[in-house]
């Protein structure tokens, strides 16, 4: 294989740190190491920089700076939102979420269930869409929290969180509405003063938008009942203990400034994605484009190839220097394929053969064309090995299983 250039198409997993972000961080790793809480001028200057960073990050989501709290990652933000809301209102015992949340929400909700809460996991349809009627029927007088992700990490499906939040709040203003916006922040315009004005809590992180790993944020609308999650300090207005990670927060702020400037590029990225999607549909038989029938993030393409297995596809892509990911069981650490694709009832002949390409503003047309060139060959090669595929007809064997989902 030798030296090869890397085509990075796994931006829903993490992103390259932007060069300007690195520059913005360096002063705080060198001379400006002071604790922003300390009582001397150099520390005060850092505290002012921290305040400026908070404004920049808040601006990306249309929030007031005082409503934005820094965390270590979106997983922490999600844990804080759910556990913190539950502890603030112990009389309410019911949560509403979806079957396709990221584990950082799903596992917290499952823990709530183990702790005696009732949790409704809303289903999705074949295109990955939620039904607002299911949502309405799930709401109860003791509903504590609604937590619905803004965009799905695997398929890119975008949920109508603003609408669901309005319905929840009109039903009962005491219901707390949380959304995990980790995948949409920086990719879609988010406005907590506009479309998302009924959302109380919103999580996102830096490393999905070209900041480094290790920094995130939780937006907490003023007046939302929420107990702290990380105790042990007066930082973040007493709501999240721990000395502020100033270098990363400075990087996060720079990344958010850049993300706002680049939001207009979403169309270009969507064009690249659509180009790859068209090419795959034209050149690969028996392929599903998961979530294509619903609103989707501009950068995400989730494919499922019938009768082959995703890990082998990734392995082959890797040999070509192409970085992507899969919902196959063999890549999940458990033996179960993606909970998202199973919730969407992707046919079981394809659910093991899923591949996700996710682009960023650094993705070029040449890279996408290279993927479009290599991918059909890989699928073809693997199908040659498949006991369910007839190479002569380039179609499944007549005796291959099919029909009802697993």
């Amino acid at each position, binding site marked *: 294989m030798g030296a090869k250039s890397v085509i990075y198409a796994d931006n829903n997993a993490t992103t390259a740190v932007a060069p300007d972000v690195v520059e913005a961080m360096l002063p705080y790793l060198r001379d400006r190491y002071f604790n922003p809480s300390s009582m001397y001028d150099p520390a005060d200057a850092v505290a002012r920089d921290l305040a400026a960073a908070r404004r920049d990050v808040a601006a990306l989501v249309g929030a007031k700076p005082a409503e934005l709290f820094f965390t270590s990652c979106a997983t922490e933000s999600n844990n804080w939102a759910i556990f913190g809301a539950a502890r603030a209102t112990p009389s309410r015992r019911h949560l509403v979420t979806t079957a396709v949340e990221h584990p950082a929400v799903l596992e917290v909700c499952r823990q709530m*269930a183990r702790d005696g809460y009732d949790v409704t996991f809303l289903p999705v349809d074949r295109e990955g869409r939620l039904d607002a009627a299911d949502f309405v029927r799930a709401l109860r007088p003791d509903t504590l929290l609604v937590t619905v992700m803004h965009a799905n990490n695997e398929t890119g499906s975008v949920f109508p969180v603003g609408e669901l939040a309005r319905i929840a709040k009109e039903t009962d203003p005491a219901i707390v509405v949380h959304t995990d916006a980790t995948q949409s922040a920086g990719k879609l315009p988010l406005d907590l003063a506009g479309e998302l004005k009924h959302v109380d809590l919103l999580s996102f992180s830096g490393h999905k938008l070209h900041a480094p790993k290790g920094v995130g944020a939780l937006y907490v609308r003023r007046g939302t009942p929420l107990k702290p999650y990380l105790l042990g300090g007066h930082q973040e207005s007493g709501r999240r203990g721990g000395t502020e990670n100033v270098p990363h927060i400075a990087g996060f702020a720079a990344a958010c400034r850049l993300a706002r400037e680049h939001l207009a590029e979403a169309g270009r990225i969507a064009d690249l994605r659509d180009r790859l999607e068209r090419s795959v549909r034209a050149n690969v038989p028996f392929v599903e484009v998961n979530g294509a029938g619903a609103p989707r993030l501009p950068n995400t393409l989730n494919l499922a190839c019938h009768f082959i*297995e995703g890990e082998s596809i990734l392995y082959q892509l890797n040999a070509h220097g192409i970085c992507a990911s899969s919902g196959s069981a063999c890549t999940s650490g458990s033996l179960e394929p993606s909970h998202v694709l199973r919730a969407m009832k992707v046919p079981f002949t394809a659910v093991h053969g899923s591949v996700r390409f996710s682009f960023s503003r650094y993705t070029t047309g040449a890279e996408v064309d290279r993927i479009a060139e290599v991918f059909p060959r890989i699928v073809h*090669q693997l199908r040659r090995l498949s006991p369910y595929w007839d190479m002569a007809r380039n179609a499944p064997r007549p005796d291959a299983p099919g029909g009802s989902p697993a």
Partner: protein
Amino acid sequence: MAWEYSEKTKQLFMDAVHGKPGTHLGEVENPDGVGEHGSIVCGDALRFTFRVERHDGDPLKDVIVEARYLTFGCTSAIAASEALCALIEQRRYTPIQALKITNKDIVDYLEGLPAQKIHCSVMGAEALQSAVHNWAQRRGVDLEKLGIHLSMVGEDDGRIVCKCFSLTEPYIRRKIRELNLRTIPEITAAIKAGGACMSCHHAPGGLQDILDETWGRGGAARPARPGPAAAAGAAAPAPAAPSAAGGPSPFRVMKEIERVIAEQVRPMLRADGGDIEIVDIKEGVVYCRLAGACAGCPGAATTLKLMVERTLKEQVDEHLRVIAV
């Protein structure tokens, strides 16, 4: 990469995928033995075929000269299939001798497999057994008479323990003994049982029970179990608030709402090419969806709020609220 494979595993996979001469991808034409193991539902499956050089007098002296596979699965499943075929062809085994090949031989040939991938080698050994069984039937060889008991025969009919991967009790029992599996994680790594929903781990007659029966209680310490899962069983608190004392029953209110919408609201909307659908009625809230021409109308929410809510307040109950869905 998620899994650390040996160089040998990677090489075999790459050679197979690129159809390098000497690899064993495909099916033997007019095979003398056909065996299958796994299924697409489980995430991997193998179809194994072989051809023998037939001995004129004694089928027991047939020698396997060609072995081929088709595999649906991950990198290591494909490499393990390659290993199985290579082992058999290199050694010019008779089908009976080939039965001696175990999953351990396959792992050794691959120069090791990650623990979570051991099931890929087990699949190869199982498909081989099934193919030899098939050969014996074709050649009129009575394996039982030779003292060879192919354990897989008849196992499919047993009670299913692991529903996710359709694995039966006799199969799981045999593999626990053959592979000396002592814990549930070991079982999952070797044969996948219990690897998905995990509900068979501690269920009555589940994996832990089978382990205990096989090895005795002390064979592997039983992990501490938390109380029964609360998710489904938790009592739903706070039933719907009863209607105000002395008021009409909730059922009557609901019927009234439906009547007013059917008789007064819907005709008005239909006049404009629209329609209305009641999604749910509960806790004094009527959840509605505007359909038809109204659905895309920017004034839809206002229409619902003003017109529908006012009508219902006047006609049914002044406390009713309408929410657009």
